[in-house]
């Protein structure tokens, strides 16, 4: 539903509802955590982080910001909330880490409650604002610093904290047990044999060319995605494997709560699984934040400047399969599609042009959304925001109005979202704003349009 001035109207007047909800919403984990805090602990923790865990980068950012406000236009929250200055990225810094710094850690519980909200729920750490800052100040880094303090003060929102707890125990984000993981792979293998009778999902194959890794929602809820990839791997004649052991999940919500120690543990398990299997490279499914974890953050906590194995995101892998002729398209997809560029693989890795090439090889009718590529707006779910759970869905939808407008303007029937968090968040937006769009992973379309035949070199 769209008004004449191209501004989305909220179909259920949810702005007011969300405001109301926000006023009374209490997150038990945050509230219980705040209750436990003493002024001494607050001060000590903040100062420990600021003094021991920051360096010239933080100092430069603090000293350089001119409060020019150019970052405001970059922020979906600012645009979705009628340009409310409270949502300017510079204001988010002012109202969180800046105050902590100025007051030398002497901040109140009420201040911290707001700091949790700003850093966890009103910023996707998408880094779009950094592109619009004349000095390139990385405000996402500052918000992650606030989250780090929240982590140490034990006031992280409940649902995302539970996700991190799962990571810490199982090394996957959804409490998937070891046997459930393997059983799911074998079940998908069995199903896929109805299509390719000798298809295998090789487990723990030493020396395979590729280790394929996914995030936990796939075995938990979306096992069909594993099926589709297995079909592609098989058809393309790829020498691949999947690990039966923990280390198979490349997601990392600890990275987004500031639990750097668990984040590093996850990344260690991931790369050491690849090393144990002696694979040449890692291909990962359509997930953005997981790519950030293994390409940028989790690896570096462990002293790996760059990932020790080449990590190929699904977008780049599909491109490789198609351009090398390992997979051919039987008939292009007919419906009008648009593409959402996930922040972490577009702004973070520059895969947007490859993604477009794949979409054009697979689909007949592609329309870009505006802005696009590295300038694309975040889905509004990323950076751990959607992982803060159902209590915050209402306000997330309000904060995603700008994204809904961007999607609606494309007139596309199908939205391609090659990232799990983006996919879930955009699905919510489509439903909430009644956008009449289908949403798909790029792998869905690859699988749907590909020739179901086995690649023969030179044929």
């Amino acid at each position: 539903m769209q008004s004449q001035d191209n501004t989305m109207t909220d179909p259920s007047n949810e702005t007011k509802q969300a405001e109301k909800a926000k006023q009374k919403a209490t997150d038990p984990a945050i509230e219980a955590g705040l209750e436990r805090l003493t002024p001494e602990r607050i001060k000590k923790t903040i100062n420990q982080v600021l003094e021991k865990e920051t360096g010239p980068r933080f100092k430069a950012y603090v000293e350089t910001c001119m409060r020019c406000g150019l970052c405001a236009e970059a922020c979906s929250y600012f645009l979705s909330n009628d340009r409310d200055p409270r949502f300017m990225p510079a204001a988010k810094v002012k109202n969180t880490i800046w105050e902590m710094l100025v007051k030398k850690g002497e901040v109140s519980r009420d201040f911290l409650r707001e700091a949790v909200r700003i850093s966890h729920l009103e910023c996707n750490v998408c880094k779009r604002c950094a592109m619009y800052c004349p000095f390139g100040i990385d405000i996402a880094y500052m918000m992650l610093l606030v989250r780090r303090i929240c982590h140490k003060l034990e006031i992280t929102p409940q649902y995302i904290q539970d996700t991190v707890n799962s990571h810490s125990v199982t090394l996957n984000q959804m409490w998937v047990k070891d046997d459930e993981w393997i059983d799911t792979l074998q079940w998908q293998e069995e199903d896929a044999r109805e299509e390719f009778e000798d298809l295998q999902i090789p487990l723990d194959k030493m020396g395979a060319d590729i280790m394929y890794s996914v995030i936990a929602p796939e075995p938990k809820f979306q096992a069909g995605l594993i099926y589709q990839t297995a079909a592609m791997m098989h058809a393309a004649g790829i020498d691949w494997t999947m690990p039966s052991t923990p280390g198979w999940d490349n997601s990392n919500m600890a990275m987004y709560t500031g639990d750097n120690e668990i984040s590093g543990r996850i990344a260690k398990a991931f790369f050491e699984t690849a090393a144990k299997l002696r694979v040449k490279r890692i291909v990962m499914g359509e997930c953005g934040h997981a790519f950030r974890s293994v390409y940028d953050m989790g690896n570096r906590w462990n002293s790996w400047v760059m990932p020790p194995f080449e990590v190929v995101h699904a977008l780049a892998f599909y491109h490789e399969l198609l351009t090398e002729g390992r997979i051919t398209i039987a008939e292009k997809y007919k419906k009008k599609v648009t593409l959402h560029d996930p922040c972490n693989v577009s702004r973070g890795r520059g895969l947007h042009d490859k993604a477009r090439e794949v979409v054009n090889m697979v689909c007949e009718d592609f329309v870009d959304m505006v802005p696009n590529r590295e300038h694309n707006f975040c889905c509004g779910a990323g950076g751990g925001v959607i992982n803060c759970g159902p209590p915050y869905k209402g306000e997330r939808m309000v904060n995603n109005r700008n994204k809904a407008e961007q999607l609606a303007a494309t007139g596309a029937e199908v939205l391609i979202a090659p990232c799990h968090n983006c996919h879930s968040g955009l699905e919510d937006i489509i439903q909430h704003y009644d956008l009449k769009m289908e949403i798909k992973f790029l792998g869905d379309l690859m699988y749907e349009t590909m020739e179901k035949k086995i690649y023969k070199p030179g044929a």
Partner: protein
Amino acid sequence: MNRKMEEKRSWDWHTELTEIAFEEWKTRFNWVQAPRVSMDGERIAAVVNLDEMAFTVCVNGDVWEGEYEKVWSLTPVSENGFAAFAARDEEWTMNVNGTEWSNWCDFIWNMMVSPDGTRLGAAFQTDSEYGVIVDDVPWEDRYENMTGAVMAPDGTSAAVVQVESMAAADVDAFKKGVFCVARNGKAMDRRFLNIWDISFDADARNIACGVRTDRETYGIVQNNSVWDNRFESVWKPAFLDADTLLAPVRSGGKWHLYKNDAPFWANAYDQLWHLTISPDGSQVAAIVSSPFGRWTVAVNDRVWQQSWDTMVADIHFSADGSCLAAVYKHKEFWDLAVDETPWHMAADMVFVPRISKDGSVVAVVVEKQGQYQLVVNKRVVASGYRFMAEPVISPDGTKVMLKGIENGIYKRKIIGL
């Protein structure tokens, strides 16, 4: 002389070449999965498909009697044989050399084989309860959740188990600690938020692990005690002897090596993990990073001169502790360094090296452009194979056993050095 060494002496080190037509199996079965080779190289095996949902294991051309809906985790074990997990009527068991264990369960995984191949263990689940089974004897106590199962050479087993239920997203319950170590199925007293990396000493009398005691505090558990010192993080501890425990711990943003709850090595590192102790206990080595982003090896806190930009994957001592080999990656290529000396192989992959008891012979399989090679003391002794299992060095160090597939034929080749 240990059993492993005795066994190796009894193997055939005289027949220069034994061949088995492996690729030919593909004409007999619908499909043949990845090959595995027995410890002594006399047998090659693979999971094979007979029909829809009908699998078995083929060893040197002969199939196991049983047919199963699924078979996986085919692994070489002692007696020159193989074990695998097998399912029939949606129930699983271990099959060793064609003989099923008496115990069946809803799922079985994490094959654990003692170094001499005589003891076999696995994790299992029945009716949503979890435990470990060793040599067909399952734990009596079962748990609602279990991770990190391990087995000592003598068959002692342990795992991290959940001893109190948690509702979904119950972060308060988690904060109180619901996990403890179960040893041979019996849960120990102490509960923690997290427990990782259970380690045994040589006789499996002592046990250690890394734990998290609150949101940001980590510790090391030695039997029933937690070290007094607390840390920012910890990695897998290792026993130097029954009374001495070493552990990499993080403090002040750097990694240190501690011994029995006190600083051991003087140097701090940007990373320090994979403690590896020479069999005689005289040398302690670890993979370290220093400065940030550079990887190398430290032995008794002395850092190798060479360092690499990507990774050191694993390190291995000879039995006498005189030789240490490291598999590393540098500038996109894999390589091996032996006692600080790089071999400069620039391989696409380097597998686990084998080292003679006295450290004089190092043999390793490498892959280059899709072909496997066997390299011994820097010299390529065989190449052009499409697959190779890890080689074996004869007990007297004068011969190397190659186990590989060339032109569709499995070859067990004894190569004099």
